[in-house]
């Protein structure tokens, strides 16, 4: 064998990519655009002085022909609408009536220099939600809930529940899961294709995730109770939801929220501004969480409280940040205020009627909560405060 011939018995070298020193790290050379100032997304104006991480991963991902989208949307619906039409709500933000740049042969990109071109682009989710915040928050919630329930199970805490309270939880706490589920899927998720910017649609998707998670939290809590409490009927929530008179008002309004005709703004407004304070918080905070402890139950309020926190601390925040500026819009304030007042006049009576049909639930537990009228007053006051935050007039209908 000559030295140039390969030795078949010699170990063959594995075929793997070889590391190569390229020195391609920031700062290795100086050239146009090598400075630290060039290391930021420069295609949008931050809402505050410094652009946030949330803005970096969210803003401009959904393009706009009124900004950089020079060739326009390239697919249209059968009726000719395309992209994210601004008329998918009757609300208006300043600038929306301005036409898109009339691009054509030899026009160039016609990028809009005065940006934002319309007021919708000013919206930022105050919760600054993106994937990392979404998973951290919700993973924490489900972990804590699991621990709470596991601890209660180990401590035999459910043994303390009175029969009437067991019936209350299996029917009424159980029935609430349906409302969260319908709102999550068929109001919030159903509308996250319709908003004018990525910030709106992402906020709706996150709101939807809260609701769907909370619905499932309640369903799985119901399953645990079925396993832990003798005689706990895990299917009673279906009967209550389908048949109990005290639930049909809330069900009717919930379903009506899914049926709002082609207006994402009205659907979200009616759900988070009207339904949640007047029915959601009325039931969750002013009934279940007020009543449970007196009936030997320290677990259910922690499950309910997680959903309550979703709404009170996060979902309401983005909703107010979304709608309040529209009431003071520099071009369409009157239009928007009139529209929202109309929505209040339409939805508040429905919500109050539904709330009143729930009144019998205040009498079902052995240890009674504060009076229904007091609870409703608290809910109304809370709602009136939200109206003030939005610079809307408290509707006359609230006096009903």
């Amino acid at each position, binding site marked *: 064998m000559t030295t140039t011939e390969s030795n078949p018995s010699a170990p063959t070298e594995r*075929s793997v*990519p070889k590391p190569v020193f*390229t*020195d*391609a*790290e*920031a700062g*290795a050379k100086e*050239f*146009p*655009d*090598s400075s630290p100032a*060039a*290391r*930021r997304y420069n295609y949008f104006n931050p809402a505050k002085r410094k652009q946030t991480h949330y803005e*970096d*991963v*969210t803003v401009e*991902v959904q*393009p706009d022909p009124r900004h*950089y989208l020079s*060739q326009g*949307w*390239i*697919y*249209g*619906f*059968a009726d*000719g609408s395309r*992209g994210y039409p601004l008329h998918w709500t009757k609300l208006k933000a300043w600038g929306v009536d301005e036409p898109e740049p009339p691009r*054509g*042969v*030899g*026009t160039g*990109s016609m*990028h809009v220099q005065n940006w934002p071109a319309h007021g919708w682009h000013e919206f930022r989710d105050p919760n600054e939600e*993106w*994937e*990392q915040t979404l*998973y951290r928050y919700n*993973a924490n919630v489900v972990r804590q809930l*699991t621990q709470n*329930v596991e601890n209660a199970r180990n401590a035999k805490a459910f043994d303390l529940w009175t029969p009437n309270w067991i019936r209350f939880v299996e029917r009424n706490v159980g029935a609430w899961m*349906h409302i969260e589920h*319908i709102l999550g899927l068929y109001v919030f*998720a*159903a509308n*996250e*294709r319709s908003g004018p910017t990525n910030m709106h*649609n992402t906020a709706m998707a996150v709101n939807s*995730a809260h609701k769907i998670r909370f*619905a499932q939290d309640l*369903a*799985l809590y119901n*399953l*645990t109770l079925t*396993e832990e409490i003798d005689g706990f009927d895990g299917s009673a929530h279906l009967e209550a939801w389908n048949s109990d008179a005290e639930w049909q008002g809330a069900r009717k309004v919930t*379903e009506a929220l*899914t*049926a709002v005709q082609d207006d994402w703004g009205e659907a979200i407004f009616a759900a988070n501004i009207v339904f949640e304070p007047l029915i959601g918080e009325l039931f969750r905070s002013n009934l279940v969480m007020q009543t449970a402890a007196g009936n030997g139950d320290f677990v259910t309020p922690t499950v309910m409280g997680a959903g309550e926190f979703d709404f009170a601390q996060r979902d309401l925040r983005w909703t107010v940040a979304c709608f309040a500026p529209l009431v003071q819009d520099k071009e369409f304030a009157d239009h928007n205020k009139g529209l929202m007042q109309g929505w209040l006049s339409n939805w508040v009576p429905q919500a109050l009627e539904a709330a009143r049909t729930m009144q019998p639930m205040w009498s079902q537990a052995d240890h009674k909560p504060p009076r229904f009228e007091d609870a409703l007053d608290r809910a109304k006051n809370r709602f009136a405060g939200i109206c003030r935050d939005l610079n809307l007039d408290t509707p006359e209908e609230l006096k009903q």
Partner: protein
Amino acid sequence: MSRQSLAKAHQKIQELAWEPQYHEPYMKYGTDYTFRKAAKKDPLKQVLRSYFPMEEEKDHRVYGAQDGAIRGNMFRQVQERWLEWQKLFLSIIPLPEISAARSMPMLFQAVPNPELHNGQAIQMIDEVRHSTIQQNLKRLYMNNYIDPAGFNNSLRNFHTDYCGTIGRQFAEGFITGDAITAASIYLTIVAETAFTNTLFVAMPAEAAANGDYLLPTVFHSVQSDESRHISNGYATLLMALSDEDNRQLLERDLRYAWWNNHRVVDAAIGTFIEYGTKDRRKDRESYAEMWRRWIYDDYYRSYLLPLEKYGLVIPHDLVEESWKQIWEKGYVHEVAQFFATGWLANYWRIDGMTDEDFEWFEYKYPGWYDRYGKWWENYNRLALPNGHNAIVAEDVDYVYPHRCWTCMVPCLVREDMVMQEVDGQWRTYCHEVCRWTDAEAFRPTYQGRETPNMGKLVGHREWETLYHGWNWADVVKDMGFVRDDGKTMTAQPHLNLDPKKMWTLDHMRRMPHLQSPNVLLNEMSDAEREAFKADYNRQGPAGRPAPKDA
């Protein structure tokens, strides 16, 4: 709650299914499909109680790896040739991802099966994850890679550049038109089930070979969510198949979706993998080999073919034609050559091919050098500014191509180009299937059947139209592809960052004005147009003019 089995938990949450009693939900998005006989179980069996912690854990791994990459100075080993192409890829992909999130509500309404809505809702959340985690990866590249230009103005570029329109089909196609065509067949059945394999598995593997292990970290994490989405699509497809009336639409949509995905994804990902890599080991798979494995064997043979027995008409001819395009007609090489021809209209730097690259291409694609070698030698010769024009304006035996009106990739396999007058305008198409897509499939009637929900192809689909008659310096400036000194171009036909070696707007100023092929086509007489077509079909390969002696 913790002791409950997943199956039991999943069974329980089915009790949430809603049958409207007082109000029917508003149906915003229409479809021509019907689901009268449909009944299908949710294949996912995913509950959010386990989903959120699982995704959080996946996030921990992704962000931990990112910290490690920065601490370990990963960018000292990253190939610039590779990362430059990420300026294109990562400007495109967050929009398709978020569009996939936006498409899920279309399915809630179109697919009357509450059990599937749970899986679709989880997919919606996944897609928000994918879009924002990818925007974040791009941000990390911008902060730590030597050349942030192109990353820092990424989304402006994507919305302006001709590549943006090609990429946006893989986004707008998910959310517009018939809800099932868009969100189910185009997105989940074809894009996610077939082509994410090359996007999110094959390409990240190539990134790792080029010193970048963050792309695989992020995209493999993304791909691990895709399996759920594939299940969503499969369940919907079986539901659609159970109704005879859907068969014609399924056949139409599979043909459109398959062909469009092939045209768009193979163009982009094929180029990244073949022309963006420095890994020229002979035993590393070529894109054609990857395609054969991931698309042909794993998708076509293992996934699509078994559905034939349920009555699905499989586009066998288009699968074979796609393979022919890649293997015999050099589709990927033609696209890469076009990208490099038009480097000046882009926002990343394109490295030339070396002798080592030539050798690898010849080994993997016998005959490659005879077709493309000379042109790439010219590319290298013209890379540094030295009194000549950019290659697009030099005589290098290359005819600037017309664009395909449908897929918007140029008509690069010249013999396949067809044209037709549609909606009062003469349009060129890269292939008969793209002509069919525009002229027949995306119409309110299809083979005599009313299809009132089908979408439309709209917009200024030829990029050059907007700049017809413009000076190239003004084009580049108008698009904003200029560095912070106000004159050096973001794009370069080489990787040399010495400012003296970089092209500027001044170099562009002396070039001939840009002309729109489509505007010129529509100015021709009928006879001129026929002559043009006959000539065009005789051009190539590698964009060569038609032979004079024929």
